[in-house]
Structure formats: structure tokens, C-alpha cells
């Protein structure tokens, strides 16, 4: 390794690499790309007794935060006129799969302003390629 940051910084990088190596085994490989503003459906595994079923949760991603195994994302939806937010760990083995329904065009990484808006004002423009 040839970092030009001095020996202590180099050691720090080396240790971070080791942490990433430990984490890498626990990361989900085949996740679709998604970011704040996208409308997604998360299929979450629920155990009832000894039966397992998938529970879909559809809504808008309002943020992604942290990295590695600690990375989470928040999905917001309106349920009967009440806003519901749910936080999922991105790499949780309980997430069966994630479907991206619509890509949203937003200017920021955390669209918390959606919380103050309802109805037509809460619309997000679709991103078209």
C-alpha cells in the first residue's frame, strides 16, 4: 500500500479496509439502484408462527443514510390520509427484493419537505432518460 498520508493515516486506511472486508460478506449483491425521490415497493419477509410471507411496502424513498452494513433507507407513504414512514436496513436479509416503480427527479438527497406536503403539492416529477 502506498498512501502519501504518513504512517498513522496509512494504518487508519488499512484498518478501514479490514472493516470493509468483514462487512462485504453481509452486503446484498443484487439490489437495484435507487435514491431519494424514487417510488419503490419493498418486499419484506414476515414470520408468522412457522410460516413466512412477503409483506409489500410501497412508498417514496426520502433518504438513504450511512454506509456498509449500517446503511438504511426511509420509505414514506400516505396510508388513509396519515403519513407512514418505515426505515429499512439496505442489506437486511429480511428484504426479499426491492422493486423500483418510478424514478423521481429531486434536487436534494433528503427530501424531508415531503412531510409538510400532501395531495398535489407532494408530487414528484418523473426522471426520464
Amino acid at each position, binding site marked *: 500500500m502506498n498512501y502519501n498520508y504518513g504512517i498513522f493515516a496509512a*494504518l*487508519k486506511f488499512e*484498518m*478501514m479496509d*479490514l*472493516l470493509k*472486508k*468483514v*462487512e462485504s*460478506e*453481509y452486503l446484498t449483491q443484487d439490489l437495484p439502484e435507487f435514491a431519494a425521490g424514487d417510488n419503490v415497493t419493498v418486499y419484506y*419477509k414476515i414470520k408468522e408462527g412457522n410460516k413466512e410471507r412477503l409483506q409489500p411496502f410501497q412508498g417514496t424513498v426520502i433518504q438513504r443514510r450511512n454506509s*456498509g*452494513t*449500517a446503511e438504511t433507507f426511509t420509505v414514506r407513504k400516505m396510508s388513509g390520509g396519515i403519513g407512514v414512514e418505515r426505515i429499512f*436496513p439496505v*442489506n*437486511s*436479509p*429480511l428484504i426479499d427484493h426491492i422493486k423500483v416503480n418510478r424514478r423521481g427527479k429531486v434536487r436534494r438527497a433528503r427530501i424531508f419537505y415531503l412531510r409538510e406536503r400532501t395531495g398535489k403539492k407532494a408530487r414528484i416529477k418523473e426522471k426520464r432518460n
Partner: protein
Amino acid sequence: MLGIIGKKVGMTSVFSEEGKNIPCTVIKAEPNVVSQLKSIDNDGYRAVQIAFDDVKEKNTNKAQVGHFAKAGAAPKRRIHEFKDFRDDSDHEIKLGEEVTVEIFNEGEFVDVIANSKGKGFQGVVRRHGFAGVGDATHGQHNRLRAPGSIGAASFPARVFKGMRMAGRMGGKRVKTMNLQVVKVIAEENLIVLKGSVPGHKGAYVIVEK
């Protein structure tokens, strides 16, 4: 009791099969070397001394160089003695033998010894878990985190030894017991333990079982 000296790398988290996020500490323990076998004839007691972390020979005094040369090893920075260093097998420990992270198995419980992070001068609430005064009002003023009474009056007319008071906290040798081994990565000499471990990143830690 088996053990190894390593360095704390840092903390992360992994997922269990049930989907639980487990907080973990990663310890890197490159192969230790058995640097001395203490015997009753020579030393008056039986023990196994292991050593870890190479030091340059020019930075080591000759006595130490000679000590490690007996075991056929380069000088090391840290040594530690174990009284009863063996597992269930009949394997006889030899001088100069390597001790690797493979002595640990997944699911086992281990203890970790290290110097804790220094916390500086701390009050009794943080240092000893006192509850403080509890009320901010009802006649209280500037004593929210005060210790309260430290003893009686003209009898015994002194404060008892060992009374818990404010003072330097941390920077002491601490043993954290019963940490579960989540994973052993032998190629990288890594041990992943569930939970936290005393000491800063890069601190020397002793893992024993």
C-alpha cells in the same frame, strides 16, 4: 486457557440469519509466538509466555533480543503469560510455536482484556453511576450532579477510605467477559466479536477463552 494478543481494529455490524443487526468488534491478531515456557524447576511456576507485534532489532535491547532468539523469533513488542495454556487435545506446546486466531471457534464465548479509553476527570454521576440530585427546582441550586453527603459528623470525624468521589476515570485495565465469537477469518487473522471491547482503535487487546 487459550489466548492471543491482538489489536482492536474497530466496530461494525453484521446481520444474523434471522435478520438481526449484531454490533461487532473486529480484532486483528497476527500469529503470536510462544516465547518462553516457564517451568517449576526454573521459575517456580508453570506458564506459557506468548508475544506479539514485531519490533526492529535496533530498537530492542540486547537482553530482549536474546530472550526472543531462544524461541527463534524476532523481537516483539507485547508479551503475556497464560497459566494453563492448552485446550482439550493432548497437544504439547513447544517453544517458538505459532498461536493463531484459529484457536477460537465461532459461537464460543471469550473474554477480552485491554486498557480502557481515558475519560479524564469525571464527576460521580459518570464515574460511579450516582443518580445526582434528581430535582432541578424545590430549593436546589447548582448541585444537580453533586454526590451528596460523604459521611457523618463528629463521629467518625473523618471520611472513610474508598469513598466514591470524582476523579480520573478510564485508562485502566478492564476485562470484558463473555463476548461471543461471531466469526473467525483465518486468512486475514481477524476475530469478530459480538459487542464492544475496551480500548481505542489500534489498542493492544488480549483475547482469552
